[in-house]
């Protein structure tokens, strides 16, 4: 039976629970502050400094780093990355959506297996896998093969944006498939039946019912792949032969090759802001008219 003096027991409990809550959240909070907020502050500070004679950071307050961002040859990589990231995202969608649909419509036990098969490749070094593509797409393999097929002796995949795209899709596919799979898997099958029952054929049903309902997963997926693609630099330099020059490469050049940290920081700040804005807009755009049913981004 209930003990007496409930009031103060309650009070005590409330106090304790507050304590517990902080205890739970604190470590993560600490981490965010120490290893995310602080470094970002450093970046922001750097972005107003100047390059020390031998590279690195020289304290100061100048805006050139930002003004330099607007030079055409600075804008160009950004545009390229934007296109590549968008293309890559669409690629992941075209490849991933049917796959997710396929997995989601398998028998209960098979699903697990297919998902597992999806993860395993990512247990080998990303770098190694990317280099493996060099061999696969090489002239003496796929590249040459296709070349012969279309009768163009010096046809190449490697070193073209196509190769980079392929690398991107390959590298980020699961991040697209997981969220899609989950939403499709949770979707109420009777909705599809209802749609067919009302005279909508397969495609019509997919377009009008399945897709709209899979939308949250679709958004999450797109963002999960789009973001890292913008910052990617290993794939373009390996598969793209450094011919497709992306934001990531520009950042690495600035930070490492020319060691102009202030400029690199400015670039980073710009990039982060742009991405935050794009994503917010994107989410807002897709959520339009879905009253009360907001799509969680991640």
């Amino acid at each position: 039976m209930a003990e007496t003096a409930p009031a103060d027991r309650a009070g005590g409990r409330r106090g304790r629970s507050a304590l517990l809550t902080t205890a739970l959240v604190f470590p993560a909070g600490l981490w965010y502050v120490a290893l995310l907020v602080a470094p970002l502050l450093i970046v922001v500070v750097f972005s107003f400094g100047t390059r020390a004679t031998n590279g690195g950071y020289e304290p100061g307050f100048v805006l050139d780093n930002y003004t330099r961002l607007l030079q055409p040859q600075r804008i160009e990589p950004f545009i390229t990355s934007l296109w590549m990231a968008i293309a890559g995202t669409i690629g992941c969608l075209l490849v991933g959506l049917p796959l997710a649909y396929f997995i989601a419509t398998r028998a209960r036990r098979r699903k697990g297996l297919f998902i597992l098969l999806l993860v395993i490749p990512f247990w080998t070094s990303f770098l190694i896998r990317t280099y493996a593509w060099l061999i696969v797409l090489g002239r003496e393999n796929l590249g040459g093969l296709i070349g012969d097929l279309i009768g163009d002796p010096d046809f190449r995949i490697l070193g073209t944006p196509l190769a980079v795209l392929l690398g991107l899709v390959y590298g980020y596919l699961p991040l697209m498939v997981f969220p899609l799979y989950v939403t499709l898997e949770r979707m109420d099958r009777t909705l599809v039946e209802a749609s067919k029952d009302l005279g909508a054929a397969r495609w019509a049903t997919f377009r009008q019912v399945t897709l709209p309902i899979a939308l949250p997963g679709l958004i999450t997926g797109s963002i999960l792949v789009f973001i890292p693609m913008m910052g990617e630099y290993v794939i373009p330099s390996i598969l793209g032969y450094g011919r497709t020059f992306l934001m990531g490469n520009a950042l690495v050049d600035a930070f490492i090759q020319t060691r102009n940290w202030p400029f690199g920081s400015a670039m980073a700040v710009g990039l982060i802001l742009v991405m935050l804005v794009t994503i917010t807009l994107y989410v807002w755009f897709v959520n339009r008219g879905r009253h009360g049913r907001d799509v969680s981004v991640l």
Partner: protein
Amino acid sequence: MSAPAIPVAGPVRAGGRTKAKVDRWNTVVEAWLRGHSAIVYAFLYLPIVIVVLFSFNANRLATIWTGFTTDWYSIALKDEVVLSALRNSFSVALPNAILATLIGTAAALGLQRVPKPVRIVFDALTYVSIIVPEVVIALSTLVLFASGFSFINDLTGLRLQLGIPTIVAAHMLFNISIVLLLVRARLSGMDRTLVEASFDLYASPWRTFRQITFPQLLPAIVAGFLLAFTFSFDDYVITSFVSGPGSSTLPIFIFGQVKRGVTPETNAVATMMLFVTLALLAVGQLALARGARRTGGVQQGGMAGMIAQQR
């Protein structure tokens, strides 16, 4: 059943006509789905096959096949650098996964109970931690550590320096976010009445967590653990920046190797890695399968199922 009384309605006759066509349609679509998926999986595994294949290549230039040999494995296994890199990779990835899982899960649980503004801030940060390009976070973190250490060292005469701990710390940022997201997704999908039922049956909050909430969250937690492990096991950029003397991990070794072109040795290392992780996976799978049987197969497909249920 038949209803001769009803005059034939248009669509039905149409149905009658399209009957054959329709049958094909179903199969066509299904076939296309299968085909597509088959290709995608091939696409995913092709490079792996190549890596394994070329780890037996006699030619030191990975790109050209000259003959079969297993020497590279013995070489790799004798190579002290490789071995220490391997050791480091594990001693980075394992604590990382564990800590990140603990902290991330705790945070996810805590965030249910904090006031909205706090939650919003947290979400925003989680969000940003995933947006920031790796190079940027890597360098700024390095600067942070280095300056912080030199400050402390000058102050206290300690000799703090970069090393495995710093790598772990740096990786955990991203990993915590991932775990946080997974677990929260799971939490939001959880049946609240189970918790109430447990309270109703005299289980204190802590016992309720242990006996009800935790088992329910397990899938998310495991998935988070695996992702965290993979990430920090495979990360190059951040690691290369915040690593210190004697803390180079496998990716760093591989990257250095690559300067001289991918050698079969690197392939051999990668292949061994693959099988090590596969073994781990298999073990986990078995453990979970048993667990699943005990706890009633809530998670179908073991580990895969767990990951499958996420995001």
